[in-house]
């Protein structure tokens, strides 16, 4: 049927002058020349397809790799780390024989083009990463960032994204326990849809993505392969959006959560029966990625017959089959004598499974189509030895002016009434308002192990019913801080997530990150990236929490305008008994409110400066990671020993935001006194890091104070849980009703 002859390896060798569309596939001239050099001939069409997707920014990390190495070089010693960077997801020991795997990824670009399916397949992809490690997925989290809350396009993107996350996650039966929703006009053309997932397994169940043992079979199972999302990774996630070129928008993928649910159960059953030698999910770059990564991580080579791949569309070319990003597919390496049983399990779960090849004792990845060899490559050159760029980076010329534009000099409220108005305005602003309208569209409690979910400081899941062992996860990031100082901003994101985990009573163990930045070809953006990675790596080393993996999303920009540098950090923690967790809500009237940590005049990048003055300038709050560690230890001890009944971390919006949230969630007011040495404004709105408020029962006050005193943590009694208003003595009082209206009606009014 096809008039042109099949572009086999022999054909390619015989026709060196044939022009290939390497530029259209996103390769640069020197990259194409490198492919030719590696192969010693021109690549076949299929080889070109593989190299182009695998060497794309999204898959190869070619711009970020030189910086990301720091996560390995500066990794702190941690007994908890079972599997580190480089696998589908990191694995952490949480004790009692359990291991937990978790990861955060981005699905930013697809979600802008098609919000529902983009966000849905983002959840699907991260969940498959978790299954591929051998774990049962137990929860998902979604840190989201959109353009201005009142922009019309936000009303298109946000409801679609939220419905997509809810639709996919709810169908899978996974509780959504955390995340964030942030609005900022810098994300208008580039919303950030990050998705995280947690999975639980026993230590002995860890599986890795490698194909070893000559003669072992390569089984592709899950959905049929169609023409969806071809080149999505290389084109979508690696180029700047440009409205002038609509043809650059390839078809996005549509996911099928019910198929994914079958894939989870089928995979876990195969693991239980120990049928799997190595496994890889098919995400970006599809079969190109799965075959080359499995082969290059194993001991031998691999031979694949592409004709055996089950297709949804019989007209697909071999290049398209290799590049397709059809969802809900996995690739397993199975010993020959176990293949029958593996296929039986797949059939039981109604999952299509096909042997498409086998592991060989050579070192080549060979792919056949209609009897001809169309790929013959060293898999390592495809998967691991892609181009590495030392992109030039330079501190942007505007950075000094931005930092000099000191937010501490902005006009402050001059009367109690003005202070009160600004408090109401703050707690009702889109970023500080309750996100209940969004998060209630997700199922929080399915599976029955959710201990804490939004709007708590971290999500918490019970891992073992009899012992009460649990894990907590928090994701945080503040693009405004990072814009002012990327190094400090990244550490503040880490510090906040770390603190959030500790606030709920869990001990922080490990980190995953999703680094969202603009174009790496812009030296200013590259500087932001380099600084943020350095900050995060230094911070993780100091806190003793290794980075276990994550994801980099570059090219988040429209035209010249890049998003704020937005490193999103997820911290995973463990708690011995979830019954000892600490909630945000005030529990009992009469309990004493303590402010832990030091409050300074720090308003750079603050919510107050944004809400009241629409201002971004100055320096972000200082970071003191030793203080963060001490604060975390105190919060964990106090929770374990029953010295506090509620706790809330202080971050954007400052103390008043935290108190209002604790009060509204508990349905109990608070009477606060401005402590000596602070003015009311700084007390309420400062965003100094390393702080939390806790509610201490009167019977525990002495013990709690002794502990803080002995450990050297400043603890100041600032008020009492009482009444049905938040009252700042000598300043103003706002009833819970007024606060609730301001805090909870903003988001539905804008988006519902």
């Amino acid at each position, binding site marked *: 049927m096809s008039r042109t002859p099949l572009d086999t390896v022999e054909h390619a060798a015989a026709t060196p002058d044939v022009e290939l569309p390497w530029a259209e596939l996103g390769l640069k001239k020197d990259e194409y020349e490198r492919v030719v050099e590696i192969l010693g001939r021109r690549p076949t069409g299929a080889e070109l397809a593989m190299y182009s997707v695998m060497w794309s920014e999204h898959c190869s990390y070619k711009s970020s790799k030189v910086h990301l190495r720091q996560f390995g070089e500066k990794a702190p010693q941690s007994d908890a780390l079972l599997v580190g960077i480089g696998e589908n997801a990191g694995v952490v020991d949480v004790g009692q024989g359990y291991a937990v795997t978790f990861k955060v990824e981005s699905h930013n670009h697809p979600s802008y*083009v098609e919000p529902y399916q983009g966000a849905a397949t983002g959840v699907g992809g991260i969940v498959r990463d978790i299954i591929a490690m051998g774990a049962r997925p137990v929860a998902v989290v979604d840190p989201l960032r959109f353009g201005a809350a009142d922009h019309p396009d936000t009303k298109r993107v946000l409801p679609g994204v939220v419905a997509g996350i809810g639709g996919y996650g709810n169908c899978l039966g996974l509780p959504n326990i955390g995340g964030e929703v942030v609005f900022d006009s810098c994300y208008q053309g580039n919303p950030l849809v990050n998705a995280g997932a947690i999975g639980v397994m026993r230590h002995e169940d860890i599986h890795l993505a490698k194909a070893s043992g000559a003669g072992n079979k390569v089984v592709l199972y899950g959905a049929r392969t*169609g023409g*969806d999302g071809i080149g999505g990774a290389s084109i979508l996630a690696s180029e700047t959006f440009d409205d002038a070129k609509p043809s650059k928008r390839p078809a996005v993928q549509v996911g099928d959560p019910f198929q994914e649910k079958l894939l989870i159960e089928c995979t876990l059953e195969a693991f239980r029966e120990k049928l799997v030698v190595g496994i890889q999910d098919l995400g970006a770059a599809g079969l190109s990625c799965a075959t080359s990564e499995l082969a290059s991580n194993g001991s031998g080579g691999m031979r694949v017959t592409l004709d055996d791949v089950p297709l949804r569309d019989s007209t697909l070319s071999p290049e398209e089959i290799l590049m397709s990003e059809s969802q809900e597919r996995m690739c397993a390496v199975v010993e020959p004598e176990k293949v029958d049983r593996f296929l039986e399990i797949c059939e039981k779960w109604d999952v299509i499974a096909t042997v498409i090849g086998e592991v060989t004792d050579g070192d080549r990845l060979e792919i056949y189509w209609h009897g001809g060899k169309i790929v013959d490559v060293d898999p390592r050159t495809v998967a691991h030895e892609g181009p590495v760029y030392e992109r030039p980076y330079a501190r942007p010329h505007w950075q000094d002016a931005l930092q000099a534009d000191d937010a501490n000099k902005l006009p402050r409220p001059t009367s109690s009434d003005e202070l009160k108005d600004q408090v109401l305005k703050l707690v009702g602003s889109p970023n500080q308002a309750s996100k209940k309208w969004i998060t209630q569209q997700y199922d929080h409690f399915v599976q029955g192990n959710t201990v804490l979910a939004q709007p708590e400081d971290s999500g918490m899941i019970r891992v073992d019913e009899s012992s009460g062992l649990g894990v907590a996860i928090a994701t945080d990031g503040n693009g405004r801080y990072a814009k002012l100082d990327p190094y400090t901003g990244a550490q503040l994101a880490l510090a906040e997530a770390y603190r959030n985990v500790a606030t709920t009573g869990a001990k922080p163990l490990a980190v995953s990150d999703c680094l969202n930045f603009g174009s790496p070809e812009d030296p200013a953006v590259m500087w932001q990236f380099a600084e943020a990675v350095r900050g995060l790596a230094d911070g993780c080393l100091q806190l003793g929490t290794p980075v276990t993996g994550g994801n980099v999303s570059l090219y988040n920009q429209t035209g010249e305008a890049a998003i704020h540098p937005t490193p999103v950090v997820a911290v995973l923690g463990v708690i011995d008994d979830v019954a000892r967790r600490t909630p945000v809500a005030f529990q009992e009237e009469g309990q004493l409110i303590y402010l832990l940590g030091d409050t300074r005049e720090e308003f750079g990048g603050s919510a107050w400066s944004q809400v009241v003055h629409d201002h971004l300038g100055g320096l972000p709050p200082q970071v003191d990671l030793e203080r963060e560690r001490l604060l975390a230890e105190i919060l964990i001890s106090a929770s374990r020993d029953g010295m506090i009944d509620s706790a809330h971390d202080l971050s954007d919006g400052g103390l008043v935001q935290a108190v209002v949230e604790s009060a509204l969630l508990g349905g109990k007011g608070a009477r606060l006194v401005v402590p000596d040495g602070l003015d009311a404004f700084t007390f309420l709105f400062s965003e100094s890091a390393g702080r939390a408020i806790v509610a201490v029962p009167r019977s525990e006050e002495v013990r709690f104070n002794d502990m803080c005193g002995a450990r050297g943590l400043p603890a100041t009694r600032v008020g009492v849980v009482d009444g049905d208003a938040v009252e700042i003595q000598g300043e103003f009082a706002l009833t819970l009703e007024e606060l609730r209206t301001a805090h909870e009606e903003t988001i539905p009014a804008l988006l519902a």
Partner: protein
Amino acid sequence: MARVVVDVMLKPEILDPQGQAVQRALPRLGFHGISDVRQGKRFELEVDGPLDEAALARIRDLAESFLANTVIEDFTVKVEEAAEVAEAAK
């Protein structure tokens, strides 16, 4: 009054979980010989006034911007003649 029919179908390369679910159900229910099912949406628009080129252009516009999600769906616009309407009613 004229009737215009807008048919919206997922693009051929896009996965159609609903269509697949129907296809999988067919043999279970004893219906054999169907190799593929794709499911779409049909909109019947009753148009006020004359159905001239301008009116059709407006309908194409509304189909493109509202009835179909052209990122993942294709659509066709066709005018249903009175005879066809009668035929369909039989």
